[in-house]
């Protein structure tokens, strides 16, 4: 049984890894359409991506929209999370459920709703519309991360500060916030990524005016499979790889330096 599980596991690892790895050689390929193995290698499609306005504008739109979404999400979620984690009140369970609702509704359903509602409000195909929609979809994710952090928060630290004479505001700024910082950063990062990757709602409401990168990629894959998509895929993949390994390597490097320092 054990050996069987092991071989199955290895087969699955290959299955998971292959699609992630394949886009890298494709991005350096000379081929005009999908072809593997590539006939030759060059950097032409990288140049194409970094010089073509029709790719750079959506990239910029996505960064702008994801940043604004993150700020708005955090401004709404941080106080609400404090209320929901630290207080008991009537209607709390409904409020809890409301925070998670956007996760339960398929994005295509929301896309139909936003398309018509934002059309009535006159903000369909604008940055504002996409930001407002994306914020709703980012709220549950930011909330889940932050509330998990806040539940694990040791409140005796706050009491200690207050017993030493710190006012509630001072305690909040000098004790609560610094301890919560990692949770806040991760929660904001998740909100950013949620918006940056969101495709379905963006396909329907971002239009020409606020075209996001996923929308542009979707259209491009659907129509012609432009090789530039392999370049963007590689860049996004590299960003994920760096984002995941950098904290690990950094903490290991710090740990080693600390050991050398004390030893």
């Amino acid at each position, binding site marked *: 049984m054990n050996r069987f599980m092991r071989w199955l596991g290895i087969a699955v*690892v290959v299955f998971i890894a292959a699609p992630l790895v394949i886009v890298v050689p494709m991005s350096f390929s000379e081929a005009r359409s999908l072809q593997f193995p590539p006939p030759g290698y060059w950097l032409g499609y990288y140049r194409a991506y970094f010089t073509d306005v029709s790719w750079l504008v959506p990239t910029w739109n996505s960064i702008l929209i994801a940043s604004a979404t993150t700020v708005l999400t955090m401004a709404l979620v941080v106080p609400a999370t404090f209320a929901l984690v630290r207080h008991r009140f009537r209607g709390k369970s409904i409020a809890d459920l409301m*925070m998670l609702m956007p996760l339960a509704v398929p994005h295509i359903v929301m896309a139909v709703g936003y398309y018509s509602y934002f059309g009535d409000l006159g903000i369909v195909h604008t940055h504002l519309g996409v930001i407002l929609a994306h914020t709703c979809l980012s709220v549950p994710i930011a909330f889940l991360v932050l509330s998990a952090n806040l539940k694990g928060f040791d409140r005796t630290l706050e009491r200690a500060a207050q017993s030493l004479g710190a006012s509630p505001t001072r305690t909040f700024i000098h004790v609560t916030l610094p301890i919560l910082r990692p949770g806040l950063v991760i929660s904001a990062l998740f909100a950013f990524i949620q918006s940056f990757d969101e495709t379905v709602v963006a396909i329907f409401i971002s239009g020409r005016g606020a075209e996001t990168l996923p929308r542009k990629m979707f259209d491009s894959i659907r129509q012609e499979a432009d090789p530039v998509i392999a370049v963007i895929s590689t860049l996004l993949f590299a960003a994920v790889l760096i984002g995941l390994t950098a904290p690990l390597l950094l903490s290991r490097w710090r740990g080693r330096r600390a050991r050398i320092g004390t030893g």
Partner: protein
Amino acid sequence: MALSIASLSARKNMWPWLLLAPLAIYMAVFFLVPLADVAVMSVTEPRPTLANYERVLTTALYQRVFVNTFATAAIVTICCLIVGYPLAYLMANSKPRTAMLILLLVTMSFWTSFLVRTYAWMVLLGNNGPLIWLLRAIGMEQPPQLLFTRFSSTLAMVHILAPYMVMNIYSVMKKIDPTLIRSAESLGARGLSLFRHVYLPLTAPGIANGSVLVFVICLGFYVTPVLLGSPREQMIAGLIGNQIDEFLAFGMGSAMAMVLLFVTLVILTIYHRRFGLDKLWG
């Protein structure tokens, strides 16, 4: 004195509401209203009747799409389980370094955008892709069409959703007390019977979590079936998309969306009653 305590406690009770108010108002205006808009459109566009629902539920073409969507979601869930269970097992039972590497791979896949992974499968399964190349190399004269079939979209969805399954099962496996397994072994449980009577029941909550999550996400999946699937075997999300951006049939699109939403919520409610919804994503 009594009065001031009462007013103090009243003020204390105001706090959570004040903190919660901005988000609650925001969600009401930008989440509930557009959602309600879909519900309203489904019975008022183009005329205020229930005709849209009647058409959605009785037309053979749409019925086929519903059946197809359910079948695909079920197949994807089962495949995710077949793929995810051994991987989670490997993660939970390997040396720390190996476990770490697999965890890194799974998280990497999880965080890589749906679109990137969908595109990658397009490359892998394309007519000039490595898989067809391999099939030719081993002597197949006429390799089958892989791309734009039910096979390609199902395979890509399994790949995209497998990390959800792995993470859910792994988090349960990691918490299993190894002494339980050892004591079962000391009582004579071996191989398959150890797995069936001890390990499998212990991991059941992870399986339930992962399966519900994968099934529900798959029901409403838009991007991958539209890009990789066969145009003749649509899933419901693709059909809703068509109604909106091709036919501008908001009434029909909304009615289909409401049916999809209803089914999703029924599944999640049953789950919520038994396990609690917050555990699903947490």
